[in-house]
């Protein structure tokens, strides 16, 4: 669990697709051979060149997970378009992680996301089952994801099997049972392997708009023929970040107190790319250097730039690949990506919220969930009660529910609030602050009075008496002392 959640914003893009600039057609420049001459031959050898791309951002996966969120449907329709425009161009999938953790750990994580996308595109439910039944680090598929899938799959009668955010306490058992009944499965309400297989397939179809986007393994670069996804999908670990902090930033962000900020900013590095290659490109084991998802990074490092470590590590200034083009360690990948309009970073909005109890004391480790649009994102607050929301677009308000860690198993969230974010600093902004702190009376003076009572101040009902303190506390400062 993490104190970060992504916020889906319906009108924002969680990915991008595009074509690479056209180059002159492959032209062989040859020397003729005189019989007693010095030209034994001219070599003619095709290369690996990309023509189009697609990217799906971190925001379309569950946090720290390879689970593809329902909102990914939007980006998958972009992939469908670019795929339809590139019939006969083989493609390959590349997952990327952020630089937190070891290379090998991140290789596995990024490989799992690539595997999730590949499994989705070719409808290989066994690959999803493998992800489900073999958790890795923070990437654990579970009940929450079963509910998410059921909330995106239409039932026989039309609406999904369950709401995106079922009320507290309402187990998803009945939704599972309904799904089972409608799919000829034993209706025990337990999403076992047989049920998951059907559910994965139904969810994949829902994400890809039926068979509008369904690939045959033969369309992949490795043709599904090399085993273990070789050439078809791979994890690039943390080797190719699109954002590298400056040395000074990295020093600060690596301190535990700043991990939330670090992980939030690193969101741009966690992404999945698809590249389409020139028509007719085929590869074999020897010509494709990327290791399989289950292999380590040793083969990647053989393909590093001669200064690959310098490229991927912090330097004096903060660097973005789209600006400097010098942040990827893997030269082989850089060659595929350097002309691509998909390798960039969308600017992100980070919102830091502190979850408190009725006494206005922060609730460290508070289990929480954020309801926004169609989506539900859950996590646990940090020890100081802080959580970070990562959004592509600034929302006006977010609906959030939380509880105390000791009640985590109750499936109930006693604290609920629609919070204003980015309140600003004009006069009405202080009404929003009071609202966020739980003072939700219609009248300003009543709210101020309640605040003054809680903090044992002189009760005046005049906002100016508490404004400085209110702003300081609301905007991240310590709890005001009682006076």
């Amino acid at each position, binding site marked *: 669990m993490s104190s970060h959640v992504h916020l889906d914003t319906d009108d924002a893009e969680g990915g991008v697709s595009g074509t690479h600039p056209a*180059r*002159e*057609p*492959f*032209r*062989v*420049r*040859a*020397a*003729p*051979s*005189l*019989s007693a*001459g*010095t*030209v*034994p*031959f*001219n*070599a*003619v*050898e*095709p*290369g*690996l*060149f990309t023509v189009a791309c697609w990217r799906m951002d971190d925001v379309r996966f569950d946090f720290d997970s390879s689970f593809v969120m329902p909102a990914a449907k939007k980006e998958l329709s972009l992939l469908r378009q670019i795929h339809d425009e590139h019939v006969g161009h083989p493609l390959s999938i590349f997952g990327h992680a952020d630089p937190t953790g070891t290379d090998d750990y991140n290789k596995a994580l990024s490989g799992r996301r690539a595997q999730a996308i590949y499994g989705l595109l070719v409808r290989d439910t066994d690959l999803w089952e493998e992800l489900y039944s073999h958790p890795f680090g923070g990437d654990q598929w579970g009940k929450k994801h079963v509910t998410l899938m059921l909330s995106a799959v239409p039932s026989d009668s039309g609406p999904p099997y369950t709401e995106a955010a079922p009320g507290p306490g309402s187990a998803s058992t009945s939704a599972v049972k309904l799904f089972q009944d409608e799919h000829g499965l034993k209706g025990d309400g337990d999403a076992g392997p047989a049920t998951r297989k059907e559910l994965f397939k139904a969810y994949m179809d829902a994400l890809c708009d039926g068979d509008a986007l369904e690939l045959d393994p033969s369309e992949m670069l490795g043709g599904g023929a090399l085993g273990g996804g070789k050439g078809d999908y791979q994890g690039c670990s943390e080797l190719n970040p699109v954002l590298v902090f400056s040395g000074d930033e990295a020093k600060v962000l690596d301190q535990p107190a700043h991990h939330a900020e670090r992980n939030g900013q690193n969101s741009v590095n966690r992404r999945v790319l698809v590249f389409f290659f020139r028509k*007719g*490109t*085929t*590869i*074999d084991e*020897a*010509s494709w250097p990327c290791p399989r998802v289950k292999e380590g990074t040793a083969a990647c490092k*053989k*393909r590093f*730039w*001669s200064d690959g470590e310098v490229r991927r590590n912090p330097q*004096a*200034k903060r660097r973005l690949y789209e*600006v*400097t*083009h*010098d942040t990827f360690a893997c*030269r*082989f990948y*850089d*060659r595929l990506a*350097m002309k691509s309009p998909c390798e960039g970073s969308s600017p992100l909005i980070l919102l830091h919220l502190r979850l408190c109890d009725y006494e206005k004391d922060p609730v460290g480790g508070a289990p929480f969930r954020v309801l926004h649009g169609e989506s539900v994102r859950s996590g646990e607050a940090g020890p100081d009660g802080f959580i970070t929301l990562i959004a592509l677009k600034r929302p006006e308000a977010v609906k959030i529910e939380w509880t105390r860690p000791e009640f985590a198993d109750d499936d109930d969230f006693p604290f609920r609030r629609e919070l204003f974010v980015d309140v600003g600093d004009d006069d009405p902004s202080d009404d929003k602050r009071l609202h966020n702190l739980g003072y939700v009376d219609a009248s300003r003076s009543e709210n101020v009075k309640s605040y003054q009572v809680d903090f044992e101040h002189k009760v005046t009902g005049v906002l100016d008496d508490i404004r400085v303190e209110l702003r300081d506390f609301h905007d991240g400062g310590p709890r005001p002392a009682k006076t």
Partner: protein
Amino acid sequence: MRVYVVAKGDHLPAIAESNGFARHDAIWSHPDNAELKKARGAAEILLPGDQLQIPDPEEKTVEVPDGQKHRFVVKSEKLELRLRIRDIASAPLGGASAILAVSDGNQDLTTDGDGQIIAPILRSERKATLTVGEAVYEIGIGDLDPVDSESGWQARLVNLGYLEGLLPSPVATEDAAPPDEPDPEDGPPYDEEAERAHELRAAIEEFQLDGGLGVTGEMDDATQARLRELHGC
């Protein structure tokens, strides 16, 4: 004696023919071309701008009796196009059917065990189209520049699959707006020149790795020698 300046796409056998020589050697081995011959090595690979001294045609007098027919045969040298087709993993494409379209017709060919075809071509031939299966290659005959020239080593990297196409130096335009004063702390800007350098360096490093050389990103003498060896010329 006159001077001929080699143009883009020129090759010596064609220059010899258009100047009425049966063999290129009449030009190439002329003492006035000795310096160029030494510099270039291969007669088939010249650089646009090279200056060739073209000797005046020699008059040859043959005395023959009257009242008979006489045949004079000029034995011109033969020219070939030799290509080695490989797959993406650098393995020779052996036993493959290929069609070479040249100006005097189509030739049906089959690659040998090394993936090689050897096709006789006219001395004046400048281009050909090779079709191998689905792949169609446009070939410029005489377009290959010496390996120690930038266009020459780039073309070999293209032929070997390391570079997507030639990357000529960007031409500076005079009426372009002057660039903003760069912040020295920002490092060099990623402009057209930097983009070109990035792509070239990637191709050179990949080649150096595959060619068993030290990976430096520099197109040095050793890299050029290896490039000529693996490209075939």
